[in-house]
């Protein structure tokens, strides 16, 4: 079974190379990309079943034993993240097939888009199964370099401008991460996560706090935690719709995943948790206030993305098994729902010619299917029962109430308020873009539009384009997956809860890497 683990990284990497060679054969290229991702999804599901059955999967690359060689570790959290990422990558891939077939690849230059997309997948999967801090850094760099290419795709002026913000911020966060790896190596003499965890307790407390804060700054920029979240709403919305969707779903979650590992394995029961809770509060509130002020749907969604990162950080900062489990379920829910919403925004843009709610109207009559595809994830993100957003928030609030401190209750109140404001921002889109008759758009007076900010460089309404069935089908598939999260919430939450228990204290992870008796 351990032979399957490296496939998670190898399949998309080999697929990328093959797709690049096949640059002049677009159809074969698409086929290769599809096969690679379907393969990873299949492998991921097998891994999840095996790992959840209680068989740990640890690969010592090249046969070098754990502290010396590189280890790949698949526990429940890793396997779950691999499966969800593969689903999202596959759905977005189908979406871009549809877009590419309809538009003749103006938006997505065919020769490099698919290879780069697979490289991005490689980086994401590598980060999820890395058992070694430096390997995690390499995974981050792979996905970041691919994301630099994707965000500046086509090289228009707006994308270069937005891309520069994103790239420079990412460079700084990478340097932070690399410098903290260097200092951790200086302190404990290893980069193996399990061994760091064993030795970290012997380090003086002030050095521990310094290393901890440096790691958190590096990951916090990637995860868009306030006050390191400013770059995200500025850079995501200009990229092509599928690229934005996959970035929004996955890239920030890789940062959150790394924060979970940091908090549970390297620095368990840290003194910094109350501060992290304050940051979670600020992330939630500041993010959603930004969302409420936006007229552009993509920018609004980018702000809600920042806001909901706060919920995950809250779950991690609680430092309990229940909190971590709730955070894991919330990550799964949010990856799926946020991607779906960005895909739906892409459909709205094609149908209405713009993504500004002050110019859209009459979409429900024109395209009822898009209406449904937007409405369900919108309610889901806002936390309306019985959707997965409600389940995730409920679990988070329960875990917070279990802790019972004043700060925890403040966060519960803020969380409820933030989900209400999220719902407000999303339902306003619904009211304006879908319910408002198209004839009323000119000279429309409403308090709902009184104080919203348009996107910079807002263009006039371009001609509407037909919406290929494949794009609608891909978005519909994602909506179906989000409903599955509700219908099968029991078993899924079971996996999350067991993953949370495994992550309560570093013992499980360390035993996994070094074997039960301390040696393999």
């Amino acid at each position: 079974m351990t032979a399957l683990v490296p496939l998670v990284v190898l399949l998309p990497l080999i697929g990328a190379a093959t797709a690049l060679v096949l640059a002049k054969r677009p159809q074969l290229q698409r086929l290769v990309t599809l096969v690679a991702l379907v393969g990873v999804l299949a492998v991921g599901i097998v891994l999840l079943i095996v790992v959840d059955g209680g068989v740990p999967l640890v690969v010592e690359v090249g046969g070098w034993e754990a502290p010396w060689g590189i280890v790949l570790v698949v526990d429940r959290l890793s396997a779950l993240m691999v499966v969800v990422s593969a689903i999202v990558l596959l759905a977005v891939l189908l979406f871009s097939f549809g877009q590419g077939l309809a538009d003749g690849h103006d938006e997505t230059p065919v020769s490099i888009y698919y290879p780069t997309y697979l490289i991005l997948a490689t980086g994401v999967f590598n980060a999820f199964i890395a058992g070694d801090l430096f390997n995690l850094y390499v995974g981050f760099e792979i996905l970041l370099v691919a994301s630099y290419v994707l965000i500046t795709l086509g090289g228009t002026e707006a994308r270069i401008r937005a891309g520069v913000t994103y790239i420079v911020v990412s460079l700084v966060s990478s340097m932070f991460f690399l410098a903290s790896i260097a200092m951790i190596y200086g302190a404990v003499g290893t980069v193996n996560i399990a061994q760091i965890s064993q030795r970290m307790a012997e380090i003086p407390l002030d050095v521990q706090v310094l290393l901890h804060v440096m790691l958190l700054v590096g990951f916090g920029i990637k995860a868009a935690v306030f006050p390191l979240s400013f770059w995200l709403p500025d850079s995501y919305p200009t990229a092509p719709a599928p690229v934005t969707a996959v970035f929004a779903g996955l890239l920030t979650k890789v940062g959150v995943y790394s924060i979970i590992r940091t908090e549970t394995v390297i620095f368990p029961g840290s003194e910094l948790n109350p501060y992290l809770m304050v940051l979670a509060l600020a992330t939630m509130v500041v993010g959603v206030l930004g969302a409420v002020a936006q007229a552009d749907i993509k920018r609004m969604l980018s702000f809600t993305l920042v806001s909901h990162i706060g919920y995950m950080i809250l779950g991690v900062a609680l430092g309990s098994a229940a909190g971590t489990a709730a955070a894991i379920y919330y990550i799964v829910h949010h990856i799926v729902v946020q991607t779906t919403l960005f895909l739906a925004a892409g459909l709205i843009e094609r149908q209405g010619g713009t993504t500004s709610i002050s110019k859209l109207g009459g979409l429900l009559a024109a395209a009822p299917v898009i209406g449904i595809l937007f409405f369900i994830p919108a309610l889901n993100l806002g936390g309306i029962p019985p959707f997965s957003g409600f389940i995730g928030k409920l679990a988070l609030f329960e875990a917070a109430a279990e802790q019972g401190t004043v700060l925890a209750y403040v966060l519960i109140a803020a969380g409820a308020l933030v989900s209400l404001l999220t719902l407000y921002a999303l339902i306003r889109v619904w009211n304006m873009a879908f319910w408002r008759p198209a004839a009323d758009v000119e000279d429309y007076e409403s308090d709902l539009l009184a104080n919203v900010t348009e996107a910079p460089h807002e263009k006039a309404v371009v001609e509407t384009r037909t919406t290929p069935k494949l794009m609608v089908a891909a978005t519909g598939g994602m909506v179906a997956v989000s409903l599955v999260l509700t219908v099968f919430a029991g078993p899924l939450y079971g996996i999350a809860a067991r993953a949370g228990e495994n992550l309560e204290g570093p013992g499980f992870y360390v035993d996994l890497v070094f074997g039960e008796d301390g040696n393999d």
Partner: protein
Amino acid sequence: MTVSLVLLVVMAVLYACGIYLMLERSMTRVLLGFLLVGNATNLLILIMAGVAGVAPIVADGVSPEEMTDPLPQALILTAIVITFAVSAFLLALIYRSWRLAKEDDLDDDEDDVAMRAGGESLLFEDRDDVTEGDTEFGTRAQAAISEAAELDHHVEPSRETKK
């Protein structure tokens, strides 16, 4: 752990210069800053390896205590390769934005400008319109030279006139 003072000072200077350059508006300077910061971080890893010793090759008469720690050097090699790839991408990006705007300065975000000017954006007025022609060193390069000539006459051609 013994640390070489020279390496430490060089690292600090590289970090200081690199961060200063990364805060500049020009993308080329950001690239140079990134290179300096990257090398400073490589030095940091090297410093964390501890004192230098003999090559870590197992041979008779060499005890492990005398050897250099080889792992940080492997990490540095990987980091150098990554920095190299990112620099190549940044150069392509700079060239592209030069082609687009005939200069590699980052444009002001219109939101920010409007906020700074209290509602009206005045800073763009002096800006020359980019003329046609798609060569790499076209009109803007000539403008830069003529501006340089003006340095003799005007004591302080402030940044505002350029933007």
